[in-house]
């Protein structure tokens, strides 16, 4: 058989030749026969004009516009097409100095003599009018339409985010972007960049010596249409957001409200904030620097997602739930309070309230002694766990499942996870396994090393409202017409605590509002469940915390309020939450005295 198939070499050589000849013909056709490809540099030039799509709009949950676009123009230049020109006139048209014009030209040439780059960006409509008439004198220059973001209301800056010009790193990593393109830098603009940006098109234009565009090269064979970005419906309630920002004026802190059943975020207030319109336009970089340098107010810092506070007494429900689930207490189990919890020379104080308390009244009166004792029952449960470490790890697992010390992978960038100390942490602090329930007793009342973000606190309120689960908080409800939201934003995440155990907790929170620590926050016609908290602040006055949800029968809103340096949670945080709840459910506020009281309060210098 050896030589039988050697004739097949001809088939293979023939195949090589056919492809070779085909390619040569193709080359001959496009290079020699079809002269429409020819671009002589003397007669005319090609210009790639990028067609920028309009970026997707952002609406709130009721269809109110939050972000839109407005037209602007960039003056572009292709350096090697520039001929001798009246530099003086160009400078005066653009309101630049001669040196600036030369410098801009030099920089464009350094980027590329053949490709276009931005000469002057975002020129106003009026300037554009002037320049357009004179453009024939300036071969190599042309105007390209762009769009800028605008915000009808100066709110929700952190959530909406902003866009900025791509930097070198992005140019390297993401080939879609070219010099001068915009990309979402934070907020929704960043997390939904791919949907919002649409797709750029390009027109390959022929340009004659008088800098006149002669239409598309080869009848538009290489032109592509720009595809507009997709509109996004945010879950934010614009009115509620605006109302929250008004209440938080002259206060440091944040409000996060979530619809418990869906995990949709209704508002995220981080105060102090800034007008998102500052991040647009020609003064953008100077505005940005100003905001960045404001080290007292830190307006760019998104407290709602990135500030961590000890949860204080709002954390007591978590300990009660763990104890109930672990079976170390019954709802009826009572502990006495001697104005606090005393053990040896350890003392955790408490305030005046009826004693002893069960689960319900301990939440209602926020009894510290009760929770110190409950916490010890959990950690010192030697029937189930052979040592402190094992019991602690189990406790920590519950806490993480309840949404503390973890990130939710929300659709907002830069979310922090807070802190639930690990056993290893206590090993380092006290020595390996040389710590007991008493050494970490501050966890019983949410103080010490615990760190939670306002988002986590609101989510905790949502898990209580849902009796044992949450849906990952997210700020976008729908993308375009399709229901194409990531599935993880509709899945339920369970806390591992049975629904039954939430009943008495909720009753305690309801009592706290009607006749307990949060009595200042009662709302007319709406039953709410709430819990105050005070976060110890080693640097100054304590922070006021409050978490709540309402209506109790069918929760529509879960909320957390943090007011920094405002002392006890019941005074400032609880009423703000109540106003927000009332506003969200009734779309108006009846409690005008309190509204004015809060509106006019300035706690910035506390």
């Amino acid at each position, binding site marked *: *058989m050896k030589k*039988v*198939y*050697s004739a*097949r*070499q001809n*088939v*293979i*050589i023939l*195949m*090589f*030749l056919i*492809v*070779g000849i*085909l*390619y*040569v013909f*193709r*080359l*001959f056709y*496009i*290079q*020699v026969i*079809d002269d429409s*490809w*020819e*671009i002589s*540099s003397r007669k005319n030039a*090609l210009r*790639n004009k990028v067609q920028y799509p309009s970026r997707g709009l952002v609406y709130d949950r009721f269809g109110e516009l939050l972000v839109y676009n407005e037209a602007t123009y960039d003056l572009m230049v292709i350096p*090697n097409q520039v001929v001798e020109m009246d530099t003086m006139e160009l400078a005066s048209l653009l309101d630049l100095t001669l040196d600036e014009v030369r410098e801009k030209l030099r920089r464009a040439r350094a*980027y*590329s*003599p*053949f*490709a276009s780059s931005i000469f002057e960006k975002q020129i106003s409509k009026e300037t554009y009018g002037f320049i357009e008439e004179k453009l024939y004198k300036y071969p190599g220059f042309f105007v390209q339409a762009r769009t800028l973001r605008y915000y009808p209301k100066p709110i929700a800056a952190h959530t909406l985010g902003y866009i900025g010009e791509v930097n070198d790193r992005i140019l390297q990593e993401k*080939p*879609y972007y*070219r*010099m001068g393109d915009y990309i979402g830098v934070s907020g929704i603009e960043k997390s939904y960049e791919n949907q919002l940006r649409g*797709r*750029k*098109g*390009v027109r*390959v234009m022929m340009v004659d010596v008088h800098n006149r565009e002669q239409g598309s*090269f080869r009848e538009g*064979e*290489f032109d*592509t249409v720009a595809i507009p970005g997709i509109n996004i419906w945010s879950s934010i309630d614009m009115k509620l957001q605006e109302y929250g920002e008004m209440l938080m004026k002259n206060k440091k802190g944040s409000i996060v409200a979530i619809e418990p059943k869906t995990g949709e975020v209704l508002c995220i207030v981080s105060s102090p904030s800034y007008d998102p319109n500052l991040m647009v336009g020609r003064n953008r970089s100077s505005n940005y620097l100003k905001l960045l340098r404001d080290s007292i107010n830190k307006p760019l810092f998104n407290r709602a997602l990135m500030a961590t506070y000890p949860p204080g007494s709002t954390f007591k429900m978590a300990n009660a739930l763990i104890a109930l689930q672990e079976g170390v207490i019954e709802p009826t189990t009572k502990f006495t309070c001697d104005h606090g919890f005393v053990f040896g020379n350890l003392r955790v104080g408490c305030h005046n309230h009826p004693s002893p308390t069960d689960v319900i009244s301990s939440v209602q009166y926020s009894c510290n002694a009760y929770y110190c004792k409950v916490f010890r029952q959990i950690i010192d449960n030697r029937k189930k766990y052979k040592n402190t470490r094992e019991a602690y790890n189990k406790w920590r697992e519950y806490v993480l499942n309840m949404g503390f010390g973890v990130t939710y992978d929300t659709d907002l960038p830069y979310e922090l996870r807070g802190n639930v100390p690990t056993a290893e942490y206590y090993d380092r602090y006290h020595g390996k396994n040389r710590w007991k329930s008493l050494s970490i007793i501050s966890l019983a009342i949410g103080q010490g090393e615990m760190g939670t973000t306002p988002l986590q606190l609101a989510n905790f309120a949502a898990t209580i409202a849902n009796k044992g689960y949450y849906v990952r908080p997210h700020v976008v409800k729908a993308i375009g017409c399709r229901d194409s939201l990531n599935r993880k934003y509709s899945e339920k995440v369970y806390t591992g605590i049975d629904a039954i155990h939430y009943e008495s907790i909720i009753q305690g929170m309801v009592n706290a509002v009607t006749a307990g620590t949060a009595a200042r926050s009662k709302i007319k016609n709406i039953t709410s469940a709430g819990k105050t908290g005070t976060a110890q602040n080693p640097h100054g006055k304590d922070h006021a915390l409050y978490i709540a949800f309402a209506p109790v029968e069918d929760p529509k809103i879960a909320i957390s309020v943090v007011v920094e340096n405002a002392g006890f949670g019941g005074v400032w945080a609880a009423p703000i939450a109540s106003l927000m709840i009332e506003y969200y459910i009734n779309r108006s506020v009846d409690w005008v005295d309190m509204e004015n009281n809060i509106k006019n309060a300035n706690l910035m210098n506390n």
Partner: protein
Amino acid sequence: MSQRIGRQSMFANIDWILVAIYFLLVFVGWINIYAATYTPTSESIFDLDRNSGRQFLWILISMGVALIIILIDAKVYTTFTWVFYGITTVLILLVIFVGTEVSGAKSWLGVGDLGIQPSEFAKITAAMALAKYAGESNRNVEQLRVQIISFILIFVPALIILMQNDTGSALVFVVFLFVLYREGMPGTILWIGLTLIVIFLLTLLFSHWHVIIAISVLTLFMWFFIRRYRKDVLKMVLISFMLSSFSFGVDYIFDNILQPHQKSRIEVLIGTETDLRGAGYNVNQSKIAIGSGGFFGKGFLKGTQTKYKFVPEQSTDFIFCTIGEEWGFLGSFLVIVLFLLLLIRIILLSERQRSRYSRIYGYGIAGVLFTHIAVNIGMTLGLMPVIGIPLPYISYGGSSLIAFTMMLFIFIKLDMNRQNIV
């Protein structure tokens, strides 16, 4: 001939034609890499900050590698084939776990600029492995068992490379079917394979209904006009039914089973979804660049379309644009002729081998080179989908230059040794 061997010259029996073509191509590549990134204020062609300078270094290294390959006893390649095959297979597997990702494909091993792309070398060892297995004197490629084992040898590395998302490199392995064809695999397998590939592509480009209608019309047409098919109605219906269901299956899998990212990769591959930079940018720009070259070209370093940012990957995958723009039809034609000479020379030399190993290896590398050349140039001419594989000896890049050099010089060495049956 035998006297020359007696003289013990290091280069005795070397095929200087192949060596000359090799040097010409490498030189063409080098000066065009320089032109592709040239600026009026440009530094020297040897500047190590430029691709041309680095390529010069790679060329020197490649020449060293070539020399070493010539010096080593040819028996080493045949004897240790399985070792080499094993090493590259482990390396490409390793890439999946610890590789670095470059533009979507995870095919690089190593740090920073010193990365290597093991898949380039896997092509060589696959050709060697095929030669080793199918070239054993008692193996007959007409036998199904031999065909199946050969397929496995080819498709194991191809599959691993496919898992790296380097679809282009994986597709190159299909070409080994031609090698088996030469060695006696029935032609029908080749034609069935080609038919299925064509139907696959057509289904994705259009829809399965169009393809099924086309198949039916074609069947009817053949039944009507070609007499010898008249009798086999049942067979024809069966075949067209099978092809139709294949088309339907492809569509079904594409629409319902593939993940969006896999889909978009295929869409980019076949060009229904244009490349990632948006809107067929690469291909259009490259056609404009080549088209504007004219008959004589714009002249060395005079191109405007292929420089800077207009055509991306200018000195790597789209290097042929620079040749087309600056050297015109004449230059491009000569490069294609050079490549054809290279390929035909390899085939002719393969046929004069007494060892089946050398012949199969020769066919193997001719196939690999041909696929690279045809796909790369076809892509710049808009005749092929955008598949990022380099143009042998011309594209910028150390791994590919060294790998293609090794590939060729192993063959040259085997050919030098053609008097002895290895």
